[in-house]
């Protein structure tokens, strides 16, 4: 029952993401064909404006609240843990079917391992496919409304982290159900643990990785608006500096003529945005300003992803082993 529900839920989300994603993809391709992304910025012809509008509306209304969409999708593993993981053994204890299943010739250890293994593997496969889809959709939707893929719920929505979360939450639910043996308390324990860890992943995890993985510091001669696709830090003055494409800007600042950091407020930079790229560079030079950024390079993204996904799978395997151990050891 819960399995069917989960399949329908994931399937429905996949269809919505697929349809809106394909519409955005074709609009994006049209923008490319029309050379709307010229070197040095976005071509502001009416044709390009029209295409941009259709891009935005391709994903509408989801693209208007993309953060909310990412948060909703990131909660799916929690629901799987609650509604598939937590009842898996607890329901068997409550209804007494454990006494039927555990006294068959195969025995309780193999019965539990088989349930865990089959469901876990299916969830991992479904999660990888769904994560790939969600990741693709978010990158497309990000084109219409800048978010960073390095942080927040969207970090858990790729082909690497999403299956990790699914398998982990499932294993946590099953472990709770083996330890607590009652469906509702096991669901509550799974929900509480999952919520804390999801929050940690979204808010703290990559920040922690950043503290152990040194930042690149770079002087950027090209202001942010010129580097299409570059993620810029939302700091005063930070918008004027961009990391290489796909990187994660953590800090941005300007240095003055003597190489010292100088505070620059947004008003000072206002004239910059009306200039053509070449003129922007000479405007900065004439004001003796050099933009700097510190960032994680784009290549680290998948390293961070692998750390989170790998940790999730590893903990899931440990939880599964503990579950089987508990089931074998404790009397029914």
């Amino acid at each position: 029952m819960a399995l069917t529900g989960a399949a329908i839920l994931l399937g429905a989300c996949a269809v919505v993401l697929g349809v809106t994603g394909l519409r955005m993809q074709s609009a994006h391709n049209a923008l490319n064909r029309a050379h709307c992304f010229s070197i040095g910025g976005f071509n502001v012809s009416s044709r390009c404006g029209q295409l941009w509008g259709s891009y935005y509306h391709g994903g509408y209304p989801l693209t208007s609240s993309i953060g909310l969409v990412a948060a909703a999708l990131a909660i799916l593993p929690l629901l799987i843990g609650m509604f598939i993981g937590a009842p898996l053994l607890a329901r068997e204890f409550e209804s007494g079917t454990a006494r039927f299943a555990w006294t068959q010739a195969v025995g309780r250890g193999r019965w539990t391992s088989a349930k865990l293994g089959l469901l876990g593997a299916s969830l991992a496969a479904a999660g990888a496919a769904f994560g790939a889809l969600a990741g693709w959709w978010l990158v497309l939707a990000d084109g219409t409304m800048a978010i960073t893929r390095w942080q927040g719920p969207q970090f858990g929505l790729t082909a690497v982290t999403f299956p990790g979360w699914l398998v982990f939450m499932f294993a946590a639910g099953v472990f709770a159900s083996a330890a607590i043996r009652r469906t509702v308390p096991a669901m509550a324990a799974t929900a509480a643990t999952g919520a804390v860890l999801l929050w940690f992943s979204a808010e703290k995890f990559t920040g922690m990785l950043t503290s152990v993985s040194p930042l690149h510091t770079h002087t950027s001669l090209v202001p942010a608006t010129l580097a299409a696709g570059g993620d810029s830090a939302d700091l005063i003055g930070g918008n004027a500096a961009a990391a290489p494409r796909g990187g994660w800007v953590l800090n941005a600042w300007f240095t003055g003529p003597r190489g010292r950091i100088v505070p620059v407020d947004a008003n000072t930079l206002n004239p910059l945005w009306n200039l053509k790229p070449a003129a922007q560079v000479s405007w900065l030079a004439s004001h003796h300003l050099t933009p700097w950024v510190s960032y994680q390079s784009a290549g680290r993204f998948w390293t961070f992803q692998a750390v989170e996904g790998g940790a999730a799978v590893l903990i899931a395997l440990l939880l599964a082993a503990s579950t089987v151990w508990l089931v074998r050891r404790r009397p029914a």
Partner: protein
Amino acid sequence: MNAIETAGLSRRYRRVWALRDCTLAIPAGRVVALVGPNGAGKTTLLNLAVGLTTPTEGTVTVLDGRPAGSAQARSGIAFVAQDAPLYPNLSVADTLHLTRNLNLRWDQKRAASRLAELAIPLDRKVGKLSGGQQAQLALTLAVARLPELVILDEPLARLDPLARHDFMASLMAAVAEDGLSVLFSSHVVAELERVADYLIVLSRGRLQVAGPVDDLVAGHRVLTGPAAETDLFNERLAPLHVQRAGAQAHLMVRMDAAAAIPAGWTSTPVGLEELVLAYLREPDATVLPGPATLNRVAS
């Protein structure tokens, strides 16, 4: 060969002893009734025998020395737990399929023909079957595993009298066909005589009576005589139970038919139900076989 052997078997749940110092040797090829009031430890004993629970103290082996709950023990024992729990959302056919995959030995033909005889539709969800049909399905699954020993926990508890009768008839037919051993618990004392040939009585977690029904019945008599003379017997025969009816008294005593009785008294045979009730009323009285029949671990 013994179907079940226990030595000093005890199980404690937190601070309560559910079963205390139970030493038993149940021979194979018997239909054993395990009787006792609620909370006597019947389910605990059965759970220990099938390996769902582990002993706090003592040992339990099944089918000639296989440790309870081991793989060899599981393949030889089919267990039908109380209320015959099965997956309610599976169809009958899926339940057969599942059980076949969970076991090494399986007789599909037998299962199918039994269900056909009982008119249980294969495509029906288990949850939609009647209580009697669910019990029969559980028994069918147990028998189709071709076990040496079938253990049933309160198989009759939730069945109406007709379903009860049909269920016991099915069980006896299976016993006759395969010569398997059966151990079932029950708090229904009536009707035991027709099916069980070995009796175990548990009371307050302790073993009270264990032995073949014929020996037990032959070893007890009801003596009827003047109530005033009852005290004569207190030392000599230690009556299990004394029932006074006006000037007359009925005493249940442990003696065989050949034993001499005092003048003025008559001796009549006891029924199994009467005997069980007498023991249940007197939890301190015991009839246990001597230690010679047990492979008791020296302690």
